[in-house]
């Protein structure tokens, strides 16, 4: 090449003619052409390790509409939050006390002590009539006892359990016949109660089970037991002075049925119910006043007689708060007689209710009076399967005045690693909220690391306001969060939970929450993407 240049230069000066000089110039240029004067390193890309490209990217991430119904379906499995007939969201507590009054308890406790009756007799054996060389002893007596009559005037009854104990002692050594009968007691076969025994040795004792015996009481709750002692022996074998002691006692008597007249039966009502309020407790803090609570009280009374329940307390409580469902107490509930299904009864209901999400306990307290007319009521039959059930349904439509309500939710998060630390800068998150709820949200999201139990960052520098709907028309609020660099973004992504927190307020009270009310969320992100962070030319 240098030779060509040398020749061209020499020829330029050697040639005289213009065109020959021109040729020399062309040769020189041509020589330069083929020397490859360009930089040989221009296509050596071994040191290429950077891309100068920083794009401005914006992406929509979420455009989702959630109705209150959707949110409940996703997050509440307690069942307490339900849709009312008009679509209003309501909290519904429903519980049935299967037996606030049970006849069996009453019948079992009616004879809560044993009753007994006894007698004795002494007379001279000389007076006994002779029979074929011996003398004939025959003694009869009637023992009359009485069931308590202060509560029941018995006409008849069926014994569920119990026994009768008979004890006879005498001073005859000869075999003695003892017969005890009670015509008022008949077994399930219709046979009257009768005990016959041949006794030797001066005493006789027996205990008999009276389960399933029927008892007929003609009057005054009295029952007659007939005793008969007989003996046929030589006169010389008998002592001159004969003596008999006898007794009968009814022990542990319980009835399965009583027919008769009753006094008013006064029984205590003291029932409690614990329920799971985890969902509300997890998401809501503070209290609110619910207007127009609906409390339905239904009673199933299988007693053949009306009754009255006087409620002193029907109360929700928990977390240090309590609210009475009753507008006043005591509240009297009339209980109709002999219902085959639950029938509603009137309760004086409070017009508003302080609701705390911590409520987890319901207490019912008062007295029930069965057969309040007492003995003036015609004959009744009480059976041990008779009872009074009470079903309480508390429906709290979310027509509320809020005092200071905070909503919060913890959303699992994390496990996201940004591929390169220098790829993203100036992240701008935009959250557009078209709020169809009558609630303002003072919103903030915290990024929580459960490993260290610390909040590492918040989404917004300060909480942002999402405005409530106006006249039922959703209102759009735009919320912006910025993260300047990768470290700030990664700090969020390192956390494993997002704690979403919103202070709820309203422009006007009361507000009504309806399952059809919706929130549309439009989450989008804008960032600078440095291709250097995505494409590593060095590798």
């Amino acid at each position: 090449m240098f030779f060509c240049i040398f020749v061209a230069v020499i020829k330029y000066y050697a040639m005289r003619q213009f065109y020959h000089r021109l040729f020399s110039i062309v040769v020189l240029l041509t020589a330069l052409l083929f020397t490859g004067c360009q930089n040989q390193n221009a296509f050596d890309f071994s040191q290429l390790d950077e891309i100068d490209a920083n794009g401005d990217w914006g992406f929509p991430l979420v455009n989702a509409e959630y109705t209150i119904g959707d949110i409940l379906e996703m997050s509440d499995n307690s069942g307490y939050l339900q849709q009312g007939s008009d679509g209003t969201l309501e909290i519904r507590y429903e519980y049935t006390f299967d037996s606030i009054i049970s006849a069996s308890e009453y019948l079992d406790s009616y004879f809560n002590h044993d009753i007994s009756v006894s007698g004795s007799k002494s007379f001279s054996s000389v007076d006994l009539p002779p029979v074929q060389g011996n003398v004939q002893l025959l003694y009869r007596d009637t023992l009359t006892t009485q069931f308590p009559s202060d509560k029941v005037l018995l006409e008849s009854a069926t014994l569920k359990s119990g026994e009768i104990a008979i004890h006879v002692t005498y001073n005859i050594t000869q075999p003695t016949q003892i017969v005890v009968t009670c015509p008022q007691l008949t077994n399930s076969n219709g046979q009257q109660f009768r005990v016959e025994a041949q006794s030797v040795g001066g005493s006789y004792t027996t205990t008999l089970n009276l389960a399933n015996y029927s008892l007929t009481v003609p009057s005054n709750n009295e029952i007659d037991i007939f005793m008969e002692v007989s003996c046929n022996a030589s006169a010389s074998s008998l002592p001159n002075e004969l003596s008999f002691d006898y007794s009968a006692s009814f022990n542990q008597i319980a009835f399965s049925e009583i027919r008769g007249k009753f006094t008013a039966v006064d029984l205590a009502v003291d029932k409690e119910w614990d329920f799971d309020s985890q969902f509300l407790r997890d998401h809501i803090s503070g209290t609110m006043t619910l207007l127009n609570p609906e409390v339905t009280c239904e009673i199933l009374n299988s007693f053949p007689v009306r009754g009255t329940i006087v409620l002193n307390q029907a109360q929700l409580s928990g977390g240090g708060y309590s609210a009475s469902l009753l507008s006043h107490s005591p509240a009297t509930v009339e209980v109709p007689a002999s219902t085959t299904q639950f029938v509603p009864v009137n309760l004086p209901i409070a017009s508003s209710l302080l609701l705390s999400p911590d409520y987890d306990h319901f207490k019912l307290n008062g007295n029930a009076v069965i057969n309040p007319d007492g003995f003036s009521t015609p004959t009744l039959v009480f059976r041990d399967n008779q009872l009074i059930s009470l079903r309480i349904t508390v429906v709290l439509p979310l027509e509320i005045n809020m005092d200071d309500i905070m909503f919060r939710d913890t959303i699992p998060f994390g496990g996201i690693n940004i591929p390169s630390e220098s790829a993203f800068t100036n992240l701008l998150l935009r959250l557009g909220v078209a709020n169809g709820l009558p609630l303002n949200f003072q919103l903030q999201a915290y990024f929580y690391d459960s490993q260290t139990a610390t909040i590492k960052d918040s989404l917004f520098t300060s909480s942002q306001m999402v405005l409530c709907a106006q006249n039922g028309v959703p209102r759009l609020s735009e919320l912006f969060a910025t993260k300047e660099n990768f470290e700030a973004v990664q700090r969020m992504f390192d956390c494993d939970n997002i704690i979403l927190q919103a202070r709820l307020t309203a422009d006007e009270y009361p507000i009504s929450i309806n399952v059809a009310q919706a929130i549309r969320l439009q989450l989008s992100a804008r960032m600078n993407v440095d291709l250097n962070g995505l494409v590593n030319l060095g590798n």
Partner: protein
Amino acid sequence: MRKVILTLIVAVGSCLTVAAQGLDVTHFMRISPFQHNDLPSSSTIYDGYVSLPTGNIHAGVNLGAIRYKNLFETNAEGYPTVLTATRFVNSLSDNNYLGVAADMELLGFGFRINKKSFLSVDYRLRANLDFKYSRDVLGFPIYGNMAYVDEPADLNMNINLTAFQELGVSFRNEINDKLSWGVRPKLLFGIANLNTQNLTAQISTDPTDYTITMDYYAAMRAAAIVPYTMSFNPQDGFKFDYDADAKTILKNAGKNFGLGLDFGVTFKPLKALSVSAGVLDLGFITWRTSTVAMSSYPDDAGSMYNNGSFTFSGLSASQIQALINGENISELLDTLAQYFPLDIAPTGKYTTSLASRVVLQADYEFAKFHRVSAAMQFRFASHYFQPSLTLAYDGCFFNFVDVCVAYTMQRNSYDNLGIGLGFNLGVVNIYAGTQNIIAAFSVRNASQLTATAGIVFNWGHYKNWKEKYPKEGKS
């Protein structure tokens, strides 16, 4: 990534040896017997020539607005260290062009029938790639979509790749001293074609919530003498298979038949001045073998379809719930893919036209063996109009050395200084040239990377020059 860039650059750089769609510098060299290739009415100094496969090899690339200096930042030693993508995109025009042409004469010969007429026959292999693209094709991924909130990003591409055989018979005749004409009918046999009828997309971004809306339509056709099959479905992806059976290829070689025509006229108002006009590559090819049509446009696959457009405004509640429930992100992407179906199906024959050219040229011989030329070429590539202007000087020295210097300006390319050099050694003519000598000195500034070279056997030029310049037959 570096490999990709390297491959791209090397591919472009390899075209340094060839010529672009502008008039090649060797066209202006009178020592070349192939001037009729670009102007059928051109005269030749030879009585005849024979060209073997090395006779005329001609290829090049027109990078349009692409410049190395805009693509790379170099250090003091000249090593590229930074890929300056933003600067590169900034340097692009709204619409840009990349062209590649390759042309090789496999066999050719010509001879003078009489004093006035010259006949030549040539069989050539030609390939042309015309790639038109809007700036946003590259600007969108570099700038990001938020740079297009005021106006949609207009991603527009047009590709026309054609490879064919050309058998031409050229006839030139001088009617008188002032007027001559030439015509060159051609039989064309297509080898392969890829032709986009439409490849456009408009992507707009809502400045408020960044909702992205995309309208696009893609329609392409392809054909080849090599039997192949293509298919696509979202599950199996894209599949391509071919059968390179020589018998079948040979059988198909003549099926994609077409016709072409070059013609021109030259007028010499003065002895030293001539003006010429020519029309080149006026013709068509009808493609019949392995013709496939591909099309794609947004499909109504769900809520993201909106009146012919695909609109993504974020994941819906149900999609988010599906993800929460454990649905894989790939399933979601599969769902999204349903909006972008790609239909590939065999189609019937179709016809494409050649990229025709109109050449207007003036030559002035200001001294013996030295002339200057000005030529305008208008090239009608598919969906793209390429005008160019070339000013050339050609000089013959010592009766066997031909030197040509040419300057060409084209759209987005104004720095093309070409040089050609030829040696006529008796019956052997060796020549080479490039349309852009600057590329050899500074590839960083080059937009045209071309070269032409050949060895051709010819005869009769000494005699003809003696007749033309009777007093100074030898210089």
